[in-house]
């Protein structure tokens, strides 16, 4: 059974992949189909309900078209999520692979750093940082990546501990391969299954973290927005029945996080040999 077939056999994973694809298309190509002004405010068109004056999902308190805003917010949420998840995966993989491969005191010191980092809630660090500087998209990617690498580091280190004793690794060393070459060419490639699966969860976590920060009012500067910021803006209108300001970004966050988790499960089926038939 090929990897693609194993993935396709997981119905939820397929649903997740399709949903993810649709959301990406919605965020990236949507503005071509439904072009809107998302920089300049228009108080004359503020707080319109869905359907009014060519606004399928109404407008917000500053007159931004809510459907268009959902699209541009999706770009930021997905971009930050994917890049921060990738950064966390790269840093965590390298850290964990080196720690697991070298072992001994180096491993102990490196993993205590990880333990110490995990003990501090990422949301706490982010909020403290947000009070010092107002984050830009680039800064959020870097910061989220740098607070999210700890879990993948632990996972990869466990894999590396096992891989380093394998015959091909020993043989490579015996043939004169340097430590860096051994880690990059033999240890990390053999943990790629764990890396890929974990990366999907990292992206989902990063999207949620972006949403948390923005929901607490410490996200990106307006007029830039993301789904969490949209939720934060809409929450003031919750008792006025303005569901169109809250439900769409909330659903978008739920769908993308669920989709990424389903895809991650599917990828796990692909790389996990224990579940395969002989």
């Amino acid at each position, binding site marked *: 059974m090929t990897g693609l077939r194993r993935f396709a056999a997981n119905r939820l994973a397929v649903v997740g992949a399709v949903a993810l694809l649709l959301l990406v298309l919605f965020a990236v190509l949507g503005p071509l189909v439904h072009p809107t002004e998302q920089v300049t405010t228009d*108080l004359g068109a503020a707080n319109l309900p869905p359907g009014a004056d060519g606004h399928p999902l109404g407008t917000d308190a500053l007159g931004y078209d809510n459907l268009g805003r959902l699209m541009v917010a999706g770009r930021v949420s997905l971009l930050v999520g994917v890049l921060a998840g990738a950064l966390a995966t790269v840093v965590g993989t390298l850290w964990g692979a080196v720690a697991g491969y070298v072992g001994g005191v180096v491993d102990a010191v490196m993993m205590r750093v990880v333990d110490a980092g995990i003990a501090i809630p990422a949301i706490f660090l982010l909020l403290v940082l947000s*009070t010092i500087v*107002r984050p830009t998209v680039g800064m959020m990617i870097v910061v989220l990546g740098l607070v999210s690498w700890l879990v993948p580091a632990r996972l990869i280190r466990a894999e590396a501990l096992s891989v380093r004793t394998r015959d091909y690794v020993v043989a490579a060393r015996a043939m004169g391969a340097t430590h860096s070459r051994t880690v990059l060419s033999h240890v990390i490639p053999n943990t790629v299954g764990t890396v890929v699966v974990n990366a999907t969860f990292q992206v989902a976590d990063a999207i949620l973290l972006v949403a948390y920060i923005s929901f607490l009012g410490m996200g990106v500067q307006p007029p830039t927005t993301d789904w969490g910021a949209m939720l934060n*803006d809409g929450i*003031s209108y919750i008792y006025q029945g303005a569901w169109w300001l809250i439900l769409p970004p909330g659903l978008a966050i739920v769908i993308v996080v669920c989709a990424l988790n389903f895809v991650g499960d599917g990828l796990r089926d692909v790389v996990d040999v224990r579940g395969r038939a002989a």
Partner: protein
Amino acid sequence: MRTTQAGRAMRLAVGAAAAVALLAGCSASSGADESAARTDVNYALPANATPNWIVPLGIAGKLATHNSAIMRTLWEPLVAYDGSEGEVGRVATADLADEITFSDDSRTVTITLDDRTWSDGEPVTSADVAFWFDLVKANTDLWASYSEGRMPDNVTEVATPDEKTVELTFDKVYNPEWLQASQLTLVVPLPSHAWAKAADDDEPDPALAETKDGARAIFDYLVTQSEDLGTYATNPLWQTVNGPYTLTGFTDAGQVELTRNETYDGDDAASIDTVNLLPYTSTDAEVNAVRSGAVDYGYIPTTGLDAPEQYEQLGYTVEPWAGWSITYLPYNFNHPELGPVYRQLYVRQALQHLVDQEQISEVIWKGAALPGYGPVPQNPESDFLSAEQKDNPYPFDPEAATALLADHGWTPGADGVLECTDPGEGDDQCGKDVEQGQKLAITILSQSGSAETDNMFAEIKSTMEQAGVGVTIETAPLNTVLSSIAPCTADQPDCDWELPFFGTAGSWYFGGYPSGERVFGTGAASNFGSYSDETFDQLMHDSTESTDPSVMQEYSRYGAENLPVMWLPNPVYQVSVIKEGLEGTTQDPLASFHPQRWSWAG
């Protein structure tokens, strides 16, 4: 069998409905009794604005209205002015003065004190008034209400002929209305027998304050103690009060518990035993507490005015709390880079043209803010208001703004932000000290916690950026904003703030007389941006000496045209929600709350 199950289900449903009805009935009938039986009130503090000062000698950054309101429940002023009785005027029951008599030449005022005692049984005497003068005169550089030439500079002699009489002699004749409403109201008699010391272990010695060094040492000590928020409820200093309440609880999060002062012997005694002042990080969080019934006297966002019935159904009365105030963004005229830019009147005119006050008031504040174009409060209108201020000399006009900047040598850079490309002092150049290449990119430091404020600045940013003015908006809690904007000079490291906003509930509340010497006067402690204009100073000076309304109107006109600050819509203090049954809640336009006048019906 199915019949039996259906029957059981029906019986359960009926039973449950009956139980709910019974409980509802119980709760409904007990609701009225409950309010009558209550002896406490939960009052919501402004969003993201926790109390951080207690001694009634405010220093810069500590003059927030909730700080002042709490102080007034603990220490009564010499002369009290407020609007709690329907109109702004002296409320003799809430102050320590008995009679106030001006001499025939109006140079001297004789004040006799009420026969009152401090909570430790010592009498309130004229020495306590003199003690306040001693402390303030020696610390004008620290006292936040100071304005050169005004209180206490304008008092040449403080005489205490007996324990209950104070005679104040002024350096010249002033407008008695201004004197009583704006100057005597600043005086708060302090317990010299308990506070006249410079260290915890010292024995109080009122004579210590009579020397400048001694007065400075006492002031420093009191300020240091007031900065120690964790000891507010236990510090013996703050237990010596003469107001209707004592402070019995204060948490790090800013929750305050006021308990009725059993020893109070004045005319403004409290009915409510315990008043809890509750802090919230945002309006949304506070509204959730209101909806759960945890708040008796709170507020809602202005969006709630669209459907007040949703709060009325919960047992609240919805009532906007309008203030006698103005709202603005001070320019930091001493900012190292942008100070010279802000000093150009045409720049301030252009920026003012980019603020669409009417739309912001109507759409974002839902009518709970009214446009304000100058230094005199515009709601309600008064004789002090000039026609020029009322008519708005700089209406929303992006084209006029763009033309003003273009005509003075500003052209768009590669990033679209305007740059000075024609430096110099000519009429068509950028102006004095504005350098070649200087960008017109401003930073607004806004108080956080309010969706209306966030939206207002998002709108202003959008409008200004269309005109080529770069805008960055930073947000911080109110206390952080207020503590980071002390008047400064360009060479000081902390002088990097530009345009701070602390006016979600109005930036500045006046006493009975809206003269602006404490906010716009050269060198005034609350003149954060260091605005200085000789003509304006003279107008403020004249307004304190003359009873002619045209003097204040001239001040109003000049302030509206010369733009010492960027004028913004003036919001109500808050849109209040008050639990039914809570009485005595007349909302003071001076933005002070008076819990001693609250009571539960029944």
